[in-house]
């Protein structure tokens, strides 16, 4: 069992900038060694939440606790957090070695020892220890041969690794990453994902990773917090967020291509009807509802929802079939062997166990398979 007061705890944090609420009472708990992704569209408040944790933004209300200590009003330097900035924020006049050493030098050397020239004489032992730690962090990141270079002489990926090294060299309790991959090209982005997760595992810190890219969140995070309009809509494992979304906004934000939304109605008997045709699903709700089906859950069937093929995208290992079902656009993910022609009329069915149902307010509704199922 972990101590209950370890890791990061944010309680009801609220931030208002210029009269606009940016965060509306957000709470979040991250255990040591856990990797939590804050996922949401731009402007949803995810970066602001991270800045509140780092101490770069003072919350109007709420508390931030790190390892059980209330740091809500503490200076960033006193919080035991490290941060990787979106544009890396490397010191351009310092070499890679000096950049990585800054967090150690700032905490272990006093003002006189950091003074130019003379300071070296009074801090031989400390400086040797710092140099050893910098070398130890740099080696696994492949930075050993670049230590004497300036940031301007590095590629984007190398700068990124220097920023990561500078953040973890001090072994912080909380490790914050603000869209660290957004400035890398697509190929490098995918390979750096694993690298970041490995760095996180070695550091063992409570890591918070801000991103708007759901692929990053799904592949890297232990848990994902989906944010929108200054609120966390849902926190859960990537599987739970994808398969079991609590809110229509979460369901439609996660998944690419987007989940298919179909206007349906629940009759007085609780049986769901799509365009008047009964579905093998029953719900306790009544009235108009939204049925959500993921693209990979559709099947072509002898009978069912009538649709016409509008467009086919071939993507190598699979294809996306865009269909028109009585005015509603449906995207289906299919095996590439499935040959369909444009304008072809066919019928669709879906796996009822995987169907999601949402009420008019966007909340998830319980849904069950009806006995004597037929589509």
């Amino acid at each position, binding site marked *: 069992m972990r101590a209950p007061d370890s890791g990061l705890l944010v309680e009801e944090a609220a931030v208002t900038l210029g009269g606009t609420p940016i965060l509306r009472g957000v709470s979040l708990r991250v255990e040591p060694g856990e990797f939590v992704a804050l996922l949401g569209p731009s402007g949803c408040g995810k970066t602001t939440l991270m800045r509140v944790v*780092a*101490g*770069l933004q003072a919350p109007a209300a709420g508390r931030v606790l790190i390892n059980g200590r209330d740091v809500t009003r503490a*200076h*960033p*330097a*006193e919080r035991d*957090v*490290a*941060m990787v*900035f*979106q*544009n890396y*924020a490397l*010191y*351009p*006049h310092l070499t890679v070695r000096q950049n990585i050493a*800054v*967090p150690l030098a*700032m*905490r272990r050397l006093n*003002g006189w020892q950091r003074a130019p020239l003379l300071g070296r004489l009074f801090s031989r032992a400390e400086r040797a220890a710092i140099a050893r730690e910098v070398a130890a962090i740099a080696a696994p990141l492949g930075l050993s041969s670049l230590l004497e270079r*300036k*940031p*301007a002489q590095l590629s984007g990926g190398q700068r990124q690794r220097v920023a990561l090294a*500078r953040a973890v060299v*001090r072994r912080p309790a909380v490790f914050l990453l603000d869209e660290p991959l957004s400035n890398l090209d697509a190929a490098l982005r995918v390979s750096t994902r694993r690298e970041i997760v490995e760095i996180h595992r070695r550091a063992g810190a409570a890591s918070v990773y801000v991103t708007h890219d759901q692929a990053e969140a799904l592949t890297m995070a232990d848990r994902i917090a989906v944010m929108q309009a200054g609120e966390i809509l849902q926190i859960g494992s990537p599987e739970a967020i994808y398969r079991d979304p609590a809110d229509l906004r979460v369901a439609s934000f996660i998944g690419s291509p987007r989940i298919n939304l179909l206007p349906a109605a629940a009759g007085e008997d609780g049986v769901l009807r799509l365009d008047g045709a009964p579905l093998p699903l029953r719900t306790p709700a009544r009235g108009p509802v939204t049925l959500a089906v993921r693209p990979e859950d559709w099947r072509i069937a002898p009978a069912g929802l009538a649709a016409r093929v509008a467009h086919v995208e071939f993507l190598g290992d699979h294809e996306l079939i865009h269909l028109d079902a009585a005015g509603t656009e449906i995207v289906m993910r299919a095996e590439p062997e499935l040959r369909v022609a444009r304008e072809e009329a066919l019928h669709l069915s879906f796996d009822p166990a995987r169907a999601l149902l949402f009420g008019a307010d966007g909340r998830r509704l319980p849904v069950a398979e009806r006995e004597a199922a037929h589509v």
Partner: protein
Amino acid sequence: MSEAALAAAPPRARRRLGEALGGWLLSLPAALSFLLLLLLPTLAAVAMAFTDFELGLWPPAWIGLENFREMWEDRGFRQSFRNTVVYVGLVAPASVLLGLGLALLIEAGARGRALFRAVFFLPVVSLTVAMAAAWQYLLHPTIGPLNAALRNFGVAAPPAWLSSSDWVLLSLSAIGVWEQAGFNMVLFMAGLTAIPRELREAASVDGVHSAFERFRLVTWPLLGPTTLFVVTITLIRSVRVFDTVAVLTRGGPNKASEVLLYTMYTEGFTFLRLGYSAAITLVFLVIVLALMLVQTRLLDRRVHYG
């Protein structure tokens, strides 16, 4: 390949020639005005420096380095040169540091940025000759407010700021600092806003707590290019000091505030010794060019981290 290429070669060569001709024609107005307005007058002044040209005496004789020998032996010129060096040595560091300090204070403050910026920039946009009258009154030995204040604080015989040979250079330097600090402040403020906010935030997350440490780790190194530019421009502007001297002291008393440009002006326009005046101009030009060379060749490489 060869035949086709050979056949195509002449028209291509002709086209290239036509393009070159067009380029020359288009740059002709600029080239001509550069020649007439800048290059020729400069060359004429340089040539004049080696003659004994005086207004009214014709033809001037070529006297080689005679003007420079005279300058070397002229106690008045040496005094003027020394005064200029002292003036630059006082004004340049003081106005650069003051400009930096003002910029940092105004940037750090929450309110009144526009007001303070305008207040300290006022001397730059105001006419020095007109403001000199105000300074003359402020520093007047008997009716000036400064000496009145000093007397109030118990200073029995406050100095005659502009008419004592001990104080006149210092007084002019103070006016020079007042003139230039605001300009430097605006340049430093521009430099400060160019520093990415992320860097300052990274520093505070990395453990930088005090404003001084942040200045040392982030602000000062990143202001490097700005500082270099400010230092160079301030040095050049200080070497060029003329109007306060001309209006307030006329180089006096007893040449105690004689400076390079004022000497050049009196030699050329009072004594009409244009050849000698041109030689002084040449010395002045060499100093300014040397300062610019130091900037571009030596220091520039050390402050741009590219």
